[in-house]
């Protein structure tokens, strides 16, 4: 990968991350932290590749640990975020009908 192409990707992604979050209300800080926690669960994809190329038993063992942890990050991160946000939905409905 070209070093400059990589730097462009980093700079633009960093700005995006900053811009997307910059006007978030305090109310959503916790779900947002949880949601971004879910998004770095994309590490699972890397873990799958790492285990796929593993050759020695040690590499396989470490790769397996990576996949297990990555999968936990994905499903746990999703479920926690979903649970928190589901509550906001419910309160909106109840709040609308006094």
């Amino acid at each position, binding site marked *: *990968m070209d070093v400059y192409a990589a730097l462009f*990707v*980093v700079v633009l992604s*960093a700005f*995006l*991350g900053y811009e*997307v*979050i910059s006007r*978030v209300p*305090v*109310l*959503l*800080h*916790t*779900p*947002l*932290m949880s949601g*971004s926690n879910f*998004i*770095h669960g*994309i*590490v*699972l*994809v*890397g*873990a*799958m590749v*790492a285990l*796929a*190329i*593993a050759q020695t038993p040690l*590499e*396989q063992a*470490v*790769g397996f640990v*990576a996949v*297990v*942890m*990555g*999968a*936990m*990050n*994905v*499903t*746990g*991160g*999703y479920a*926690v*975020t979903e*649970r*928190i*946000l589901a*509550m*906001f*939905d*419910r*309160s*909106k409905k109840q*709040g*609308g009908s006094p």
Partner: protein
Amino acid sequence: MIDFIDPIYLLAVIVFIFGLKGMSSPKTARGGIVAAGVAMLIAVVATAAAFFFPTTASLLGLSGTPALVNLALIALGIGIGGGLGYYAAKKVQMTAMPQMVAAYNGMGGGAAAAIAAVELLAGSGINGLSVAGAVIGSVSIAGSLIAFLKLQGWMRQRPIVYPLQQPTNIAVLIVGVFFGVLSVVMNQGVYLLPFFVLTLLFGILLTLPIGGADMPVVISLFNALTGIAVAMDGFSIQNYAMIVAGILVGAAGTLLTVLMARAMNRSIPSVLFGAFGATEEVGGSIQGSLKPIEPDDAASLLAYAGQVVIAPGYGMAVAQAQQKVKELVDALEAKGVTVKFAIHPVAGRMPGHMNVLLAEAGVSYDHLYDRDEINPEFATTDVVLVIGANDVVNPAAHRQGSPLFGMPILDVENAKNVLVIKRGQGKGFAGIENDLFYKDNCRMLYGDAQAVVGKLIQSLKTV
């Protein structure tokens, strides 16, 4: 058909960005996480499918289809990890959510470190970036797990300090990184063992001196770090989805960390190196005494008030009192009392913690006011009911020399009456005595928040 993987990763990344954008507004938040979830599923399925197309697999850095045993291990790992993660997240109490975020963030960091370890063992990735990914990932998993243990109460929450702490920690990190570089230069996998032991140790040592009150900021910081570790791995194995998603979380997480720290009037270095709450304040003696009040008397104060402001804190979360609090609000509103909630940005263990719990109980948004909105109103408020909050209502924050000095607080002391529901006479999370409880206009209701609020509701019926 063959080169489907990069277009799908691109699509996933775009959906992640819109998902994150959606999550920054209450109306679209739920749609945001669902969209991101679908994108994640597609990315994972596409990666698995790519293993069976040799040309596409080579784009992922594979030399042909992986061995059957590796494929089986991948399926097994996803099954075990995915099942465990989902089950635990569904089963855990809402109050334990902050530490669950810490735990799952740690898993991500651990996965990033483990990927880097495989790359280093196999010598297949770009080694310098793998070392960086391994260091950051290790610090993130070790630190997150300590944060989890502290929040879960399985470990002492007060800062753990010892002489020469910072120099020791830095030395551990430097020696650790040295072994990592050595393993690359000498091409000897054996140096990876001390490398990982020392970088994990650094993550633990870094988190030990951080007190419970600062934990949300630290978890957010580790979240950002995990993102960066994932991006480093992404560079190492040339995976654009990991690079963009990782940097996205790294940047968003860093900003979120700064926002949280600002809300507590703390700087990131002072969070990391300040050992906040380890030292007792000296000299600041408090005038007055703690004055208890009976629930009946408290209820009549509330019933005849024009405006009541409720300031909830971690005590409400621990006691699971949010449902009772909602009943209390309904009972008071039935009597024509205006009820508002004063939400300090860092009340509880995480920003937004109170919003989540009150939303769970069905309290609508328009009852919730943040610190800047509500502070001018306290002077015209008849009764403030503090439920299990402590440091965020401590007027010591206005007194120079106090460890809390400068932290923006809810100025509940300005109200005509202050009622405080509190488990016992202990100190707050920061370990600092609360001046508020000794003020003339303050009365204490001791006991579990849910039980006390229940008594207040009962008493209200007879007023």
